[in-house]
């Protein structure tokens, strides 16, 4: 193999797209390492504190596309204090200084500042794609800088970010010379946009394939925009409110009939259900439909809509569809692969509209289903066993019973057997979230059967340290473990400390782990950062090792304790 010139090796490596394959290739020998290093353009950093920007640049000097993830997953649910960390600025700064030819940046749960966006926009001439998911810390001024300066921008995708809307004219900051947009998603912005600027932008970008509008874009503007972009494949409507008895609505109907390419729809951030029939002609081609942000559509109206969606592969919907509606999905959407059912009234009186019956119906009707997120009122072991038998192909299975410790309502038993059936049947399961009344037994099953499991989320479950130990010992491919409000303590934490170097991170909050236990772990494992997050207590750290730790987040790292930790985060 050493007799191949580097160019040939590089050409061969070009066919390797997965990070894991490329990582494996780097380990073969020094020359392969070198060639791979200089030809790696896409880098994925699952924890921004596992490595430093400088070392990343030294390792992969030709990086063009970087993915960074910051805060732990539970930050999505307010369990992580606001200024915990995850700042992207140092990364942008380091890459700018080193003249990295950055073209794509994808960030998840990171803190992004306007200064960072401005630096980004100025520093990377060929910058093409910015994807921000669940980020915060910037305003529309930062977006304006990106729009104004990134001359070859193809993609600006903002998903569920907290953006302060300065009511500026950021959309107008795209220069007339910008014609390269392929994807524009600003659905999460709350403020007004300049509709004229938007329409002109759409008109001059003939390659625009994906457009997701925010709530401030009214239906008549949607109609005009669709006329300008009949080539769209992915559409997120803004406000979908109108009087159906109007010329505007009739125009919309005929415009939709011309949009033959739309395969994915989302948005409907506010809806007049009477206007839904306009999209029926598109429904027959849809492979992806997200109505999970659409308030106030009754189950019956959803059912009417679903009848038209025979090709659906991905469906995100609210639980107002009901068990009955899920039955319709089961009989109509035979190609369904991914289903997410969100609670329309998460904190409401226990009238959540879906139960295990809907899920069972789906499992009978949709054999290709492999990814599920399901918020429901209740679940029975029998239902889960049936689902496991019908759908052995699950790779992601997340079940959230709104009453977190609810037992099987029929047998009053814990749900151990039901989830056990899932892990036993679904041999490719990579992600699992549990809820309901659960004992150590379910973890025994998970340790025994969930061989491919990479991410596990546990809440209000288990009886003793044994539970957590079953998982740590059994799940060889475990990368992320997040636990809240469960009785796992020091014995579980400390029995196999080496395990944590094989994982990305471990989160434990409101468990039984003590400060002393964490200290022991930190001392044994220098390449693990053990962070204690203590927002409320005035206690001075370190005085009582027997004290229970409210929130602990540990992760493997090559660069030691981070220097940007706020005062309430203590790295042991």
């Amino acid at each position, binding site marked *: 193999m050493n007799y191949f010139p580097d160019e040939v090796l590089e050409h061969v490596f070009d066919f390797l797209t997965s990070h894991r394959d490329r990582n494996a290739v780097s380990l073969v020998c020094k020359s392969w390492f070198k060639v791979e290093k200089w030809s790696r353009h896409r880098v994925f950093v699952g924890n921004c504190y596992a490595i430093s920007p400088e070392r990343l640049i030294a390792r992969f000097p030709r990086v063009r596309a970087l993915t960074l993830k910051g805060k732990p997953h*539970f930050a*999505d*649910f*307010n*369990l992580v*204090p*606001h200024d915990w960390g995850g700042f992207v600025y140092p990364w942008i700064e380091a890459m700018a200084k080193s003249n990295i030819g950055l073209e794509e940046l994808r960030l998840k749960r990171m803190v992004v500042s306007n200064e960072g966006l401005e630096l980004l926009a100025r520093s990377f001439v060929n910058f093409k794609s910015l994807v921000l998911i*669940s980020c915060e810390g910037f305003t529309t001024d930062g977006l304006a800088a990106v729009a104004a300066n990134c001359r070859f921008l193809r993609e600006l995708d903002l998903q*569920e970010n*907290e953006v302060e809307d300065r009511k500026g004219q950021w959309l107008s900051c795209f220069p007339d010379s910008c014609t390269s947009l392929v994807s524009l998603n600003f659905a*999460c912005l709350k403020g007004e946009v300049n509709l004229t600027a938007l329409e002109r932008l759409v008109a001059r970008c003939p390659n625009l394939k994906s457009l997701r509008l925010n709530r401030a874009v009214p239906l008549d503007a949607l109609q005009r925009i669709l006329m300008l972009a009949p080539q769209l494949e992915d559409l997120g409507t803004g406000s979908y*409110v*109108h*009087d159906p*008895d*109007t010329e505007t609505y009739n125009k919309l109907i005929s415009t939709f009939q011309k949009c033959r390419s739309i395969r994915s729809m989302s948005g409907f951030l*506010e809806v*007049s259900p009477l206007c839904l029939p306009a999209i029926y002609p598109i429904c027959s081609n849809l492979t992806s439909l997200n109505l*999970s*942000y*659409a*308030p*106030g559509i009754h189950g019956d109206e959803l059912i009417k809509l679903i009848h038209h969606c025979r090709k659906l592969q991905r469906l995100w919907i609210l639980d107002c569809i009901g068990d009955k509606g899920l039955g319709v999905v089961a009989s109509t959407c035979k190609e369904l692969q991914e289903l997410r059912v*969100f*609670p*329309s*009234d*998460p*904190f*409401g*009186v*226990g009238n959540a509209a879906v139960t295990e019956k809907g899920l069972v119906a789906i499992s009978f009707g949709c054999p290709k289903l492999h990814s599920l997120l399901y*918020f429901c009122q209740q679940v029975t072991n029998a239902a889960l066993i049936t689902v496991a038998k019908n759908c052995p192909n699950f790779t992601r299975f997340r079940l*959230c019973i*709104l*009453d*977190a*410790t*609810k*037992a099987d309502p029929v047998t*009053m038993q814990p749900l151990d057997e039901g989830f056990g059936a899932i892990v036993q049947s679904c041999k490719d399961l990579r992600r699992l*979230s549990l809820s309901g*009344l659960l004992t150590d037994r379910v973890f025994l099953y998970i340790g025994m059967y969930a061989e491919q499991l990479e991410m596990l989320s546990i*809440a*209000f479950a*288990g*009886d*003793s*340290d044994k539970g957590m130990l079953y998982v740590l010992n059994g799940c060889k491919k475990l990368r992320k473990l997040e636990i*809240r*409000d469960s*009785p*796992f*303590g*020091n*014995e579980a934490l400390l029995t196999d400390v080496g395990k944590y170097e094989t994982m990305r991170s471990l989160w434990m909050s*409101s468990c*039984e782990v003590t400060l002393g236990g964490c200290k022991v772990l930190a001392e044994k494992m220098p390449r693990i950062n053990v962070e204690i997050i203590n*927002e409320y207590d005035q206690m001075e750290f370190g005085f009582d090792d027997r004290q*229970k730790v409210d929130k602990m987040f540990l992760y493997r790292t090559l660069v030691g304790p981070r220097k940007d930790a706020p005062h309430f985060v203590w790295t042991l």
Partner: protein
Amino acid sequence: MSPQLAKPSPESSSAGLHFNDTELTLGLPGATKSGTKRGFSDTVDLNLRGPCNTDHASNPSENDVSGDSKPPPAKTQIVGWPPVKASRKNVAKISKYVKVAVDGAPYLRKVDLEMYGSYQQLLGSLEDMFSCFPIRNYLNERKLMDPVKGSDYMPTYEDRDGDWMLVGDVPWKMFVESCKRLRLMKSTEAIGLAPRASQKCTSTSGSKSL
């Protein structure tokens, strides 16, 4: 050394309080209850209705808008449960019910302003609701209806400042945001206030109630 979880009692009431049925308790072996570990029910934040007194108390599920007679939620809330992102928490059907009073009617009605997309829809619905009280329609919208001859009532509303305003001046959404209640005012009371359909409102010597 790890605390054992005391099993919940096997009896369970069939309906009602799920919390008591499934309450998890912790204690050292032999202890019956108490224990430092919080079970699900112990973790609830009991200050649901009041203003959030800790930064991370869970959000109240209703806002103040449709003020009266909301049944208190059966569950109190726990931080971070159910695990939905903040952006999804308010997706529940938004409704804004306001009282509608018609001068001379024996009782009031309520309408959900979020059900409508325009003034036209609202007034049409009000006409249906109070079918014996024709409502003068002066609005200059695309779908203009001729002002009903001899109609008796002007639609007015009370805004957040407590002022009585004429319906129709501001964009629809702004109106929904600021409207607290509606009153269909007898036209005889409204002399000098009502602008004509296609005329600009000229200042008159009569004072407006705006």
